[in-house]
């Protein structure tokens, strides 16, 4: 990996794909969950994966930072690249990959630690802060970017699990941001939240756009339309259609996409 080729996220607006996937197949034991998916993800966009439950969109998302490695019996074929580097190559370091490609889960999963320690967890294991002051800075900036700072600045020592669901999810986003990743994967981040908390997270995703490449899995089409610029429609483990969000929702090419969007199934 050449440090010069690592794009500065602040630069944004380039058309070089941040991540590319080519002919990806995923198997759980004998069962094939993903068939021949090829897709490019760019830095300056929020990319949404939509599709009915069980269509493989979450499975595919978990391939992008190799979280499928933690599932017994999962096997990934094909090629997935981050900045033109094969992430499944033996030379690729999973620890480093996951630091660069962060993830936010469906259910908020703060660690049973204080708010401060939750955010400091990543920088600490990766050794990103030398002194206490550095760590304080990182924690503060991550919480500010996640829009949580004003709410929690006086109770950083309290347990992260004692917050409301929406706050917990924003804490998890802050936790992901604190490592300063290049890509953030979000696996239905609002499905466990109420509408107000959902709106707050959607605003946050919009604010983070441009700084990080964001991929969000959602089964809520309105949400995809609201937050994303690109949308991929998955069905039965295949990528049916991938285009600008506006195009997908106004003028889908495939009938299956159209049927799904108009609510025929899903």
């Amino acid at each position, binding site marked *: 990996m050449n440090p010069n080729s690592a794009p500065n996220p602040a630069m944004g607006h380039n058309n070089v794909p941040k991540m590319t996937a080519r002919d990806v197949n995923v198997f759980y034991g004998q069962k094939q969950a993903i068939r021949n998916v090829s897709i490019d993800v760019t830095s300056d966009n929020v990319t949404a994966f939509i599709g009915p439950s069980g269509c493989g969109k979450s499975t595919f998302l978990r391939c992008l930072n190799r979280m499928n490695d*933690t599932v017994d019996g999962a096997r990934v074929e094909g090629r997935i690249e981050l900045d033109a580097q094969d992430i499944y190559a033996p030379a690729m370091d999973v*620890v480093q990959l*996951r630091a660069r490609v962060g*993830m936010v889960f469906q*259910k908020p*999963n703060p*660690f*049973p630690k204080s708010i401060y320690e939750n955010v400091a967890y*990543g920088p600490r294991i990766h050794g990103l802060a030398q002194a206490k002051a550095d760590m304080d800075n990182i924690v503060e900036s991550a919480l500010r970017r996640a829009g949580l700072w004003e709410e929690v600045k006086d109770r950083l020592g309290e347990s992260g699990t004692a917050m409301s669901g929406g706050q917990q999810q924003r804490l998890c986003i802050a936790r992901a941001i604190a490592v300063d990743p290049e890509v953030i994967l979000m696996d239905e981040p609002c499905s466990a939240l109420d509408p107000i908390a959902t709106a707050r997270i959607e605003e946050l995703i919009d604010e983070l756009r441009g700084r990080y490449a964001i991929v969000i899995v959602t089964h809520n089409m309105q949400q995809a339309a609201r937050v994303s610029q690109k949308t991929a429609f998955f069905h039965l483990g295949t990528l049916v259609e991938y285009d600008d969000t506006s195009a997908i929702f106004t003028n889908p090419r495939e009938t299956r996409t159209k049927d799904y969007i108009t609510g025929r199934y899903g």
Partner: protein
Amino acid sequence: MRLLIAFAMVLALAGLAYLAGRGRANRLVLAGGNRIGAVHSRPVYHGAYMAVLALAPALLLLAGWAIVGENVIEGQVVATMPAASQPAPGNDRVALMNEVRGLVTGDLPQAFNPLAPVLAPRYAAIKNNLDLLAGALAVALLCLGGLWGYSRIRPDFRARNRVEAQVRVLLLVASVVAIITTFGIVLSLIFESIRFFRMVSPVEFLTGLAWSPQTALRADQVGSTGAFGAVPLFWGTIFIGAIIAMAVAIPLGLMSAIYLTQYAQPSLRKWMKPVLELLAGVPTVVYGFFAALTVAPLVRQLAVMLGMVDASADSALAAGLVMGVMIIPFVSSMADDALTAVPRAMRDGSLAMGATMSETVKKVMVPAALPGIIGGVLLAVSRAIGETMIVVMAAGLAANLTANPFASVTTVTTQIVALLTGDQEFDSAKTLSAFALGLVLFMMTLVLNIYALAVVKRYREAYE
């Protein structure tokens, strides 16, 4: 034996009652034209109802007689003697009656107490009469109950509901046995302990540093009344069960559980779990034999190598080590449960940050599972301090207050066994002290268990 025949007879008569009741109900069904609802309950229920009415009082009577009968007979036999020559209740009387019984059954060819041959025929006669009386009463009760039941069989009699109510009572009675057992334990321990504490003050027992329950031969010897300071026993119990054994079991059990839950292939896990369960089923006497025959000599050799010439053959270390090995499967399975109860999302969250598995385990999983692990360890401690055979076979009887693992210490359970086997003297402080030790042990494990179960329960609820 006679009692057994009586039981069998009562059961057979109850069977007859069942047949009679069912027969009568069957005839009613036929008389009612075999329509559904003509007779409320099916004939089997009528039969069963009648059998229960016949059986229950008779069985209760016989069971009661089986328990108190011997005492009643003894009382009657003793009452036939002139008041002056009656033996005092307690040891003398028990010994005398044992000889009398021995003479009657023929187990004892010759009695030592001259009274015994005199009493033997009286005993036989009284026992014969009273047993017969009890049997006759039982049969009478049975017949009365049965007849009453028979008379109640009518088409509209709700026999099924009655039988089911009786079954519910039976279920309830079975459940109450657990309470009775608990109370039985508490009462028998407290009762005997009170007798002990009349002879030895509780303060001395709980705080005294010297333990030598053997009564001395000469009155001027030190501790001629025996010394009952149990602190060295408590220390030995904690030293072996809670310190040495846990020093072995906690790291090995916890690391095994971590490896099995986080690293091992599913196939290895599939094999190791039943193997661990099988190991948990190895009898403690086997571990004790292993400790005494194999481990203890090795530990002694080690001590000699380290320069302790007079190293003890029954060291605390040998017993503690083997007890630790015995507890490993238990700690491992408790830790396994606690770790698997941590939501997978927690683990994934950490891994997705780029943490390695060991960082995830150390910084997220174990802290999150800590209450469950601590609860499991407390249960393991409770099991270790109550464990008997390993320490009986491998630990010593010398009550030393030492922290040297190569020295010999003794434990509460070892002493209970030592005090209650061999030649027992009734009502001596020596024998009764075993019950006081049992009471302390019971309280210790009870507190540990209640606390540990509460911790584990709260922990499980936190993640449900």
